[in-house]
């Protein structure tokens, strides 16, 4: 188990380093001179020089990179050029919306997908299976932001069960959750469709194995067999998908915030792009990629928890 863990940790660290290099290269090297890019064509020489100085752009790139990484390690993500406040603060506020949204959506997706996938696999070839397959076929084709608009039409404007947009803050947790519910559902449904299909297919494959028959021969009921044998073995491909879905959910959350006017990372990043606030873009992208890489690592850990063979093999 040790070797597997260490191997995964090394992989994690390596990915982070390479990802940070890529981000740094694109943001700080490719535009040529980030300072003049940020200030635009009409800026005077002096202003550009002053900004270049302030951002430490006169240092050699390798040094700048190291400073950046060292800063991030201590929680210093620089200062937003447009808002003149520490990026860490900005991101922290927005993460308080985006992260719970992504997690809420993930939870809903799993809660919807598992029963559906189990049902379809268990009743393979029959009506229930066809129904699930038909529904998921439509589900994976839905753009989540369009689905969100439809949800708003029906559940916020027609039947006023949920707010149509905005976020009241976490002061009142229930109100906050209510505001995130429609967005989470819109995000969750297409992902649940994908997950249900993967689960169904993994279960069908597993249920065809000989050890399932052995389990029945020992006197396990169909339900016990699925829970104690089929599900666990089917989880490996399912976990892979859940891991990938987290990254799509984060990206989806960013897009869906637009529909609901949520004060999350999405708005921050899109404004930063229009305002050419490269510092904010750089930090937010790094954080997003960091989140995805960490989730991949967690999924690798989960594999080891599920499949004991991985722990001894490394």
């Amino acid at each position, binding site marked *: 188990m040790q070797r597997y863990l260490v191997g995964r940790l090394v992989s994690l660290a390596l990915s982070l380093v390479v990802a940070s290099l890529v981000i740094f290269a694109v943001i700080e090297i490719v535009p040529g001179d980030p300072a003049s890019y940020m200030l635009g064509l009409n800026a005077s020489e002096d202003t550009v020089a002053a900004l270049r100085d302030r951002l430490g752009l006169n240092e050699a790139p390798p040094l700048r990179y190291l400073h950046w990484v060292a800063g991030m390690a201590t929680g210093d993500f620089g200062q937003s050029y447009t808002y003149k406040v520490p990026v860490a603060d900005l991101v922290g506020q927005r993460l308080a919306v985006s992260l719970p949204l992504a997690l809420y959506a993930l939870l809903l997706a799993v809660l919807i997908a598992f029963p559906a996938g189990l049902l379809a696999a268990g009743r393979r070839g029959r009506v229930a299976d066809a129904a699930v397959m038909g529904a998921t076929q439509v589900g994976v084709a839905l753009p989540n932001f369009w689905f969100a608009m439809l949800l708003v039409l029906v559940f916020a404007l027609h039947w006023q069960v949920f707010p149509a947009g905005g976020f009241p803050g976490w002061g009142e947790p229930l109100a906050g959750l209510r505001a995130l519910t429609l967005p989470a559902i819109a995000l969750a449904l297409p992902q649940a469709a994908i997950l249900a299909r993967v689960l169904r297919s993994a279960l069908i494959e597993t249920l065809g194995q*000989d050890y399932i028959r*052995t389990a029945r021969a020992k*006197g396990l009921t169909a339900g016990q067999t699925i829970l104690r044998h089929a599900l666990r073995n089917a989880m490996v491909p399912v976990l892979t998908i859940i891991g990938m879905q987290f990254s799509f959910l984060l990206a989806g959350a960013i897009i869906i915030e637009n529909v609901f006017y949520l004060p999350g990372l999405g708005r921050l990043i899109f404004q930063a792009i229009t305002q050419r606030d490269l510092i904010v873009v750089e930090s937010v992208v790094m954080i997003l990629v960091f989140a995805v890489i960490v989730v991949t690592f967690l999924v690798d850990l989960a594999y080891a928890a*599920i499949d004991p063979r991985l722990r001894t093999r490394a």
Partner: protein
Amino acid sequence: MSLLAVRDLSVTIHETPILGEVAFDLQEGGIFGLVGESGSGKSITALALMGLLPEGAEAEGTAEFLGRNLLTLPEDALTRLRGAEIGMIFQEPMTALNPMKTIGDQVAETLLIHRAARRARGSGRPASR
């Protein structure tokens, strides 16, 4: 009185007959050997008795065991018999056992399942012998 009395056991898969009118008796304490060429239907016979035939297969005939016909028992009754009164050991250990669980776990599982089932049914004593 035989422990197991099989008469006219026939199996079809998707209406194609693959086993016809098998009959034999098993005595308590006895050892019975069913011998045949590859594909003659030995495994299918055993699976039919366990109620574990593959999808699309149907069994006809009678298999009297403890006063009941195994071939017409409902699933929950069969579940109680399997692993407790009737055991089956498969010939290919590499595929017959779950590769992600230990052998010990899977052997113990039989005892655990049946003990828990008996408790759930409210009878404190082990069934028969």
